């Protein structure tokens, strides 16, 4: 089934790039988890916390919203999260705090 390669990109920098077991984003239709082998997808991402689950732990990214593109890449799957402004955090709590300051700044 291959691996899942996750990229979290902002216009100013790539915040996360690498293999992961799962990525969870919040879309306008609800929370969604993407695993390796997911169907090709184009979706929107609303303001919230993106949760990337890797072999050595979790990364949380507070994002202000954008898009998600899942596409096959050979036998692997690549999931790209495109957001305007974002901040990486190590725990869900600090990501939530970062999120509220991101939303307040707009």
């Amino acid at each position, binding site marked *: 089934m291959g691996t899942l390669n996750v990229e979290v990109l902002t216009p100013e920098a*790539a915040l996360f790039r690498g293999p992961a077991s799962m990525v969870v984003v919040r879309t306008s239709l609800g929370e969604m988890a993407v695993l390796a082998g997911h*169907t090709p997808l184009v979706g929107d991402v609303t303001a919230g916390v993106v949760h990337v689950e890797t072999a050595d732990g979790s990364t949380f990214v507070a994002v202000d919203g954008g898009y998600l593109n899942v596409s096959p890449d050979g036998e692997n799957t690549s999931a790209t999260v495109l957001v305007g402004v974002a901040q990486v955090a190590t725990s869900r709590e600090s990501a939530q705090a970062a999120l509220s300051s991101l939303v307040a700044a707009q």
Partner: protein
Amino acid sequence: MAGGQERVLRQRIKSVQATRKITKAMELIAASQIARAQARIAANRPYRTAMQRVIIEAALGDPVVASKLLATPDKVGTVTIVAIVGDRGLAGAYNSSVLRATERLAAQLKAKGTKVQIYGVGKKAGAYLRFRGFDVAETFVGFADKPTFADARHVAQAVATSFASGESQQVILVATHYITAASQKVETRQLLPLAMPEGATSSASGYTEFEPDVETLLASLSSRALESEIFTALLEGSASFHTSQQRAMAAATENADELATNLKRVMNRARQDSITTEIMEIVSGAEALRSGK
């Protein structure tokens, strides 16, 4: 008087050398900024590529909706032009070539009976275009050297507001495209309605899911894509600005060197002349005294 001429020349050499010091410093500063600006373009590239990918996927997902939303209307009453230049001068033809292209485009549109509304980025845009009688809706200054995404968003929001309210039906960007350090080109490109990126073919063979549906996605994509395109243009503009400035200041430093060398030659000749004259005067004076004995 010969001595007076020498003093005037010495003064001029000093002022040329002072100018050279300034141009040399500006050259070095610009050179250090180029690398930083290039790095920021490189950091932006993955996002921009992925954003275009999303637009292509969405547009190919529902061609009927896409052709409705992405097509330029047949009748365009007002066009918004976004011109991106620098905040400072002394950068060769960087500012003027973008502004001249803007002026040309605006004149062409006006000749066809289309109204033109201009949004300018960079201090140099407002003065130039207003003076020539164009309708400058807003100018953004203070970040052309080192633009952030928040700045791009700010510009995009102003432009999008006028487009969304139906005030203008088309948005065109005039900016400098940074190809390599040695080549930059003024580029005119349509931003809204969203243009289909070139070479559009789907990477995913077959079925792609959309969440929400393509129509909603494409509608929200235009504002995101506008931000992304304006940000890329701002980054490329700042890299082009620093490159042009470095080139212009290197040329100015060289000119100052040449001018100083020439002036020094003229000064030395003047000094030599005055010395020769003085010696002649002394010798002829001594001659006259001796023959008088």
